[in-house]
């Protein structure tokens, strides 16, 4: 269970998949890489592997590469801040990191509904049962509920009966999963049939009928959860959080972006809240379920009489930015500016009282977690060796390969771990430029890039070549596609087919009087960008192409991209596992300074991308994504380069260090200190 990045909104920012409808996990699992446990720690004996003995207590000191500007969960979207905030705040739902399944957490259960809008303006919500050519059947005012097994007294999937511990019972069809039971009501007298002709147009997309699936979510808040100061967590807190996020004077635009599609938020009763979406989108559920809940009593918003701007300003600069009050397993202890941030486990964590089968007893184990701010890598290594730091997740390749970290003394004490993170580098070809509009030219360019050599000499083997826009561990990645091989011969043939021939015999190929001389943009931030560019420059020369390298500052580079003033560019995208390809590959994003800046316009791809957004079944979605992968593979709008590995060192006394393929790759809730002598 990946608990440390609890703020699920963060997960979504990183692009991790949500799905509300529990699936049969056996089929999902074949696409999801299971985490490895203590893979890089040879001190763990085989016996201990079989019978792990987690013990509570102890502290973990982490190196932090830079100090966060604030610990406000809404306004600060830096990774450092989000990591800490994620340990302080729990959310309504939680994602099981091994099955990628969403499960009840602060919400006891939830209900998913659809809605249909009729021509007369009335709206019917319920469960859409079936859709014919001329009509739609909907089970009015009912929804699909998902209960965690810990809250169920008894259930029978055959009879379709379910009884909760609080005494309520349900009859309907049940679908059992490892940790949860999904309930769909079957009450035929509530089913109504609506003719398609009576259904109005969708306001956000007038070409479609207003039949919006999975667009209403009811969450029921569990009793007995309190803030670290003892105040109870209530639905008012959720309402306050929603209002704060959507207040445009709160400096949280990146987060608010996810809430754009919410049409309304309502508090139904003392335990229930309702989110209604304007349209159907597979990420919606995790956005509203993952909302960061803020303590209303700390901010006392009523004093502003509805003056949004003053409240926004008050919130942005509030004292709690530096002393956050949370509701999670860890509470904030202190933040010494420029030195350290300390969190401590709460004495009685509410989630431990709920009997979640997916939260082992005593977890999280570490009593105290300290982040030490050390900006310099050499100093950080010294502190690791001096015993002042237990783990450093930001190891640079230079340090990874240095002599000091490869001695026996060092490797006896510290595990050298690495994990492939969802991030890939690529060279983008401007498809609107005269050189790269032909797909054969782009394929030729890919054939001309010696990726194996670059991986070996520049990245020293710390990267994995990829063939598409997904992480190699992404369930959507199509492993059947072979990487384009390095072949000048094939490249030359493709270029010739595309009409690029050396007509005037000056050694440079040309077409329609234009010589093939293009500009290759790189970010001046790292030295290896230049080295890679030099290798490519030399390689394309063999095919009679001149490449000019231009180094730009990051902000200038992003401006240049937005203005489409480039031929080719080397960049990287941080994606997630099972993300949404819309932003990068949909043709609508090719204009107006959108992120599809290479100008990839493909009708088939557009269709797939649009379907993906409304596909809630992950297996079907991944199948579609693999098709998209195939199209991109053949079109080569980018030459996809590498997935990168994150390198880190940690003290071998820590156990149950699981490595996940989602960022950040580790989960501190798993970790405990090995102490065999104690009972």
């Amino acid at each position: 269970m990946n608990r440390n990045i609890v703020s699920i909104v963060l997960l979504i920012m990183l692009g991790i998949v949500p799905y509300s409808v529990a699936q049969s996990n056996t089929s999902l699992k074949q696409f999801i890489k299971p985490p490895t446990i203590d893979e890089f720690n040879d001190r763990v004996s085989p016996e201990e592997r079989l019978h792990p003995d987690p013990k509570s207590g102890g502290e973990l000191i982490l190196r932090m590469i830079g100090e966060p500007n604030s610990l406000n969960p809404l306004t600060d979207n830096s990774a450092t801040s989000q990591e800490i905030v994620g340990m302080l705040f729990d959310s309504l739902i939680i994602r099981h990191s091994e099955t990628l399944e969403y499960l009840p957490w602060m919400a006891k259960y939830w209900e998913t509904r659809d809605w249909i809008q009729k021509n007369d303006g009335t709206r019917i919500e319920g469960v859409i049962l079936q859709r014919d050519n001329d009509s739609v059947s909907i089970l009015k005012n009912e929804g699909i509920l998902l209960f965690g097994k810990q809250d169920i007294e008894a259930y029978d999937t055959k009879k379709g009966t379910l009884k909760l511990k609080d005494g309520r019972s349900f009859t309907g069809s049940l679908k059992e999963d490892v940790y949860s039971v999904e309930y769909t009501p079957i009450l035929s007298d509530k089913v109504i049939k609506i003719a398609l002709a009576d259904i109005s147009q969708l306001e956000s997309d007038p070409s479609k009928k207003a039949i919006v699936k999975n667009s209403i979510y009811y969450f029921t808040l569990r009793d007995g959860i309190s803030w670290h100061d003892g105040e109870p967590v209530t639905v008012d807190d959720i309402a306050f959080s929603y209002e704060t996020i959507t207040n445009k004077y709160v400096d949280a635009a990146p987060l608010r972006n996810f809430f754009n599609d919410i049409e309304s938020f309502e508090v139904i009763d003392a335990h229930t809240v309702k989110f209604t979406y304007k349209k159907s989108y597979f990420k919606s559920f995790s956005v509203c379920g993952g909302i960061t809940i803020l303590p209303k009593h700390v901010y006392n918003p009523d004093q502003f009489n509805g003056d949004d701007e003053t409240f926004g300003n008050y919130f942005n600069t509030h004292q709690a930015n530096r002393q956050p009050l949370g509701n999670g397993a860890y509470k904030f202890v202190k933040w010494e500016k420029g030195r350290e941030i300390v969190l401590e486990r709460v004495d009685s964590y509410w989630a431990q009282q709920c009997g979640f089968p997916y939260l082992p007893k005593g977890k999280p184990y570490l009593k105290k977690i300290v982040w030490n701010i050390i900006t310099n890598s050499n100093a950080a290594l010294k502190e690791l060796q001096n015993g002042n730091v237990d783990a450093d997740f930001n190891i640079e390749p230079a340090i990874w390969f240095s002599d000091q970290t490869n001695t026996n003394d060092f490797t006896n004490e510290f595990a050298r771990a690495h994990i492939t993170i969802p991030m890939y580098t690529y060279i983008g070809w401007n498809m609107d430029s005269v050189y790269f509009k032909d797909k054969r030219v782009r394929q030729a360019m890919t054939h001309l890039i010696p990726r194996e050599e670059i991986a070996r000499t520049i990245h020293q083997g710390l990267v994995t070549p990829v063939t598409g826009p997904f992480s190699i561990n992404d369930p959507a990645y199509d492993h059947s596609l072979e990487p384009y091989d390095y072949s000048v011969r094939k490249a030359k043939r493709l270029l010739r087919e595309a009409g690029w021939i050396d007509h005037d015999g000056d050694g440079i190929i040309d077409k329609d009087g234009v010589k093939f001389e293009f500009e290759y943009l790189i970010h001046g931030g790292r030295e290896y960008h230049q080295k890679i560019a030099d290798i490519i420059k030399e390689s394309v020369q063999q095919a009679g192409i001149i490449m000019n390298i231009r180094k730009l500052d990051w902000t200038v580079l992003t401006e240049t991209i937005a203005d489409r003033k480039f031929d080719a560019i080397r960049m990287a995208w941080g994606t997630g596992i099972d993300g949404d390809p819309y932003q990068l590959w949909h043709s609508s994003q090719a204009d107006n300074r959108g992120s599809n800046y290479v100008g990839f316009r493909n009708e088939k791809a557009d269709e797939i991308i649009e379907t993906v957004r409304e596909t809630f079944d992950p297996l079907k979605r991944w199948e579609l994504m693999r098709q998209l992968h195939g199209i991109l593979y053949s079109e080569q709008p980018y030459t996809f380069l590498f997935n990168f590995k994150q390198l880190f060192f940690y003290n071998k006394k820590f156990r149950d260090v699981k490595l996940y393929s989602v960022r950040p790759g580790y989960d501190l809730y798993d970790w405990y200190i090995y102490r065999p002598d104690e009972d």
Partner: protein
Amino acid sequence: MKEYIVKRFLWMFVTLFGIMLITFCVTRLAPGDPATLKLQKMSGTMSGDQQLSKKLIEETRQLYGFDRPLLLNFRSENVRAYTYKLAHELIDNDEYTRADAQDDLIENGKVSLPYLLELLRDKDQSELHSTICSIFSKICSFTYPADTSIEDKITRCEQYMSDDKLLFDATHQQSLIDTILNDEPNAVQSAKDELATAGTAALPQLLSTAFILKPDQTAELFNTAAAIARKSWYFEEGASDETKEQLLHLWKKWWARNRQKYTFFSPIERVTRIFTATQFGQWVGMVLTFDFGESYSHHIPVIKLIKERLPVSMQLSLISIFLTYIIAIPLGVFSATHQFKTSDKVITVILFILYSLPSFWVANMLILFTTGGEFPHIFPNRYLHSPGAESFTFFKWVLDWLWHLVLPVTCLTYASFAYISRQMRVGMLDIIRQDFIRTARAKGLSERTVIFKHALRNALIPIVTLLAFLLPALLGGSVIIEEIFTIPGMGKLSFEAILNRDYPIINAIAFFSAFLTLLGMLLTDIAYVFVDPRISFDHDR
């Protein structure tokens, strides 16, 4: 002397204004702006699966005040321009911008109607017509019969406007307001109702009247306005004066911010707004009130941030400057008095070797060899205190602090030895060849007295010149050393501010540096007088 100082002070203001203008322009002309950077996240990689709505970038820009022009504001900012802007956003590419524009227009209410009608009459804007018609009907809460053509809808809107002409007439509104103020028994309710029907079109008249009068007379007006503007700021019977004051303040603030959505500015206001309603005007206004704004990324007032960071940098720079001078000046004097001797040459060579070593390299070497790991752990390698230093005894605390200072101060100091001692040496050599020194020696004074009493004071003039840059150096801190030794000082603050385009911090630091440099120069000039009695600023001498 006094006259000179006063004159210099006056010039300082002019220079400062110029510097502010230049730094302001330079920061704003540099590519990238904080709003987009914040949304992209500042790093070498961008997030590849978050489609950002243009609307949100606009909102963030507004929040940071970038929606205003930079230096001069010639925009027409009034209800007509606002209506037109929103109307054109109705056909924007971004769906969220479209939806927002529609909501904003409906919220702006009846005051926009005349201008919407203008757009409806304009044949060139026909692509807007159907949306505007539907907004029009929503504002006025009427409906068109099914299957009404666009032309008929427009006629219906025209009809509405000519029926309700009186609603938009300021004199008529004023007479209604007077009725309410005079508390005419039978007419008050109907006047209120009529104003409520006029909706936002009545707001300018209502509020401008209400602001002039005393609060106890105007409760009714404000309450009518509150109903129109859908605000919860009602003046209730028997509310305390404090509450009333607070409500009035809220109203005034809201009106100052939103006036341009409902009304036109007077010519005088428009002329002043050319200079004041700009980003630069706002910044100058802030400097004049000693409020340097809030950092975009820290969300803390810049002054508070500087107050937090300045002492950290000051301890480092004060100590290292003190050490530099205390070591370099005697070295310079020694080199001068032992010119061409072996000792002079050895010192020169050593100093130049030190001078040529880059400090980031030395700092990393010191960390590598003296802070533990497989080497001895002699010094700490980060921050200024040990963890838990607050509970140390004072003596131990000071020792711990000095122990932490050794490495950073070494790195900050060694390179300046060469420069300052060279300056001192040259100055000294100049002086000791002069006649008065020969005279002093001829008088039979001891060499020590000659050098330290007679020569040194005169030789210090070039060094005093260097002092002018001391004050800004105290403020500036050192980016490299602070980064390497994880010291949260001014250097890091300004460096990160530049990376994040955190304008309030950059501008404030530039302002203070400029001010301190000017002050330093003035102090240097004054110091000359003390060091060398021959220098004077009075013309009559």
